[in-house]
């Protein structure tokens, strides 16, 4: 299952400056693990020391916030597009 992931600027150094990469994953947790396999170092940036995704990093699947879906268990289908966006990019009047 091939998923497109848009990589935020601070992580692009780890993805050889690629803005978009492809991974194989059935949900968001698997997506993070597969990213780590392909681009070692990514997981430490997205997850805390206990391996949990940091609460101030938001994921969007096909432009929908996963908190409106099933959170980190949100299932991914072939050709889905996932964006990783810092929570601070949320609203401020």
């Amino acid at each position: 299952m091939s998923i497109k992931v848009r990589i935020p600027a601070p992580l692009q150094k780890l993805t050889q400056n690629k803005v978009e990469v492809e991974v194989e994953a059935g949900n968001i947790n698997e997506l993070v693990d597969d990213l780590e396999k392909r681009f070692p170092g990514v997981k430490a940036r997205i997850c805390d020391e206990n391996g949990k995704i940091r609460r101030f990093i938001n994921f969007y699947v096909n432009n929908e916030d996963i908190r409106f879906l099933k959170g980190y268990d949100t299932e991914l289908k072939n050709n889905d597009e996932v964006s990783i966006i810092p929570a601070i990019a949320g609203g401020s009047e």
Partner: protein
Amino acid sequence: MSYVKGLKCRECGREYPANILFVCEYCFGSIEVAYDYDKIKKVLTRQEIEKRPKNMWRYKELLPLSKEPSDGLTTGFTPLVRSHNLAKVLGVKELYIKDDSVNHPTLSFKDRVVAVALSKAKEFGFRTVACASTGNLANSVAANAAIAGLRAFIFIPADLEQGKIIASSIYNPVLVKVEGNYDEVNRLCSEIAAKYKWAFVNINIRPYYAEGSKTYGFEIAEQLGWRAPKHIIVPAAGGSLVTKIKKSLQEFYQLGLIPEFKTKLYVAQGEGCAPIVTAIKEDNEIIKPVKPKTIAKSLAIGNPADGFYAYDVVKKSGGWAEAASDDEIINAIKLLAETEGIFTETAGGVTVAATIKFIKEKRIPKDESIVICITGNGLKTQEVVADKLAKPLKIKPSLGSFEEEQKKRPTADHYSI
């Protein structure tokens, strides 16, 4: 002379020089300005502050500029009104209204953050400023950019109140109505900000911009005679203001400008958009975003950037949170006007309505000092109350006609909640 040490990640603590940065390059945490308080303590005293002009820059050492301020030189130092009529209705002893509905130049507390953002944008050499806004920020960026001679791009949701649109257009910025809600406008702006080299005041200039809100808290403490009140009720959209009020009192305490600081902080949101209130009530630090549906459009942010921090500050202070329905908002706007002569916008209605609930629920005791934050002006959101007010008497130009019609109008039933 600058008192800024640099920028610091609120999450992992990594430090950065004071450049243009709004997200930690390591962990994506939000970035905050760090100051050299030992140096500030040597120069900033009550006497020194009291000597200065009555505007927000009297606290300039605690604001993140490297040079002298260049914008918003008449902004701030708005009235802290001692309320007698509303206090009587609510049955409380010591009530104050911090009234930014008369802030200069655009009648909302956003003039404070924009004053800092534009001064800072000029230090960085920007010639174009921009923002994503629910209205008040749009008005302020448009006006202050006009004063400063900067180009302005303003992005707003298409369904804003007419008053807020005109109060931006009048300054002739490039005003962009986006077909979507605020959260969609904001996401679009994040993408635009990544591509265009503009000073987006609430995106890439955000760590500096947000510091301007502290002056609202500084003024409350100074105007109360250099002390912190026991309770402050704050409206919440993105959630930043309540965190900055807390920071302002913390800093004053740390600098010895106020003797103690045991203030409980409360947040208020509209019922149809209350992600922060929900998190506090359910004691869940994960903020669940919502699709907003409330007449309080200035607070209609379903995915609040500072939601977690607002939650954290309220919880740690021992405060609470309440949401107000559309009817409650309208009644509260009318109550504040009829008791204190202050015509606030929907956000102020939310705050007053929530205050009524906190007092009824006995979360706020009746004999302690309370400050209600009024952050915007009712002339900008007239349509929400237009149909809810007594119609004017219509008469012929004769004494008889006046006396005839006047009898039909019962005395207004003021002051009941």
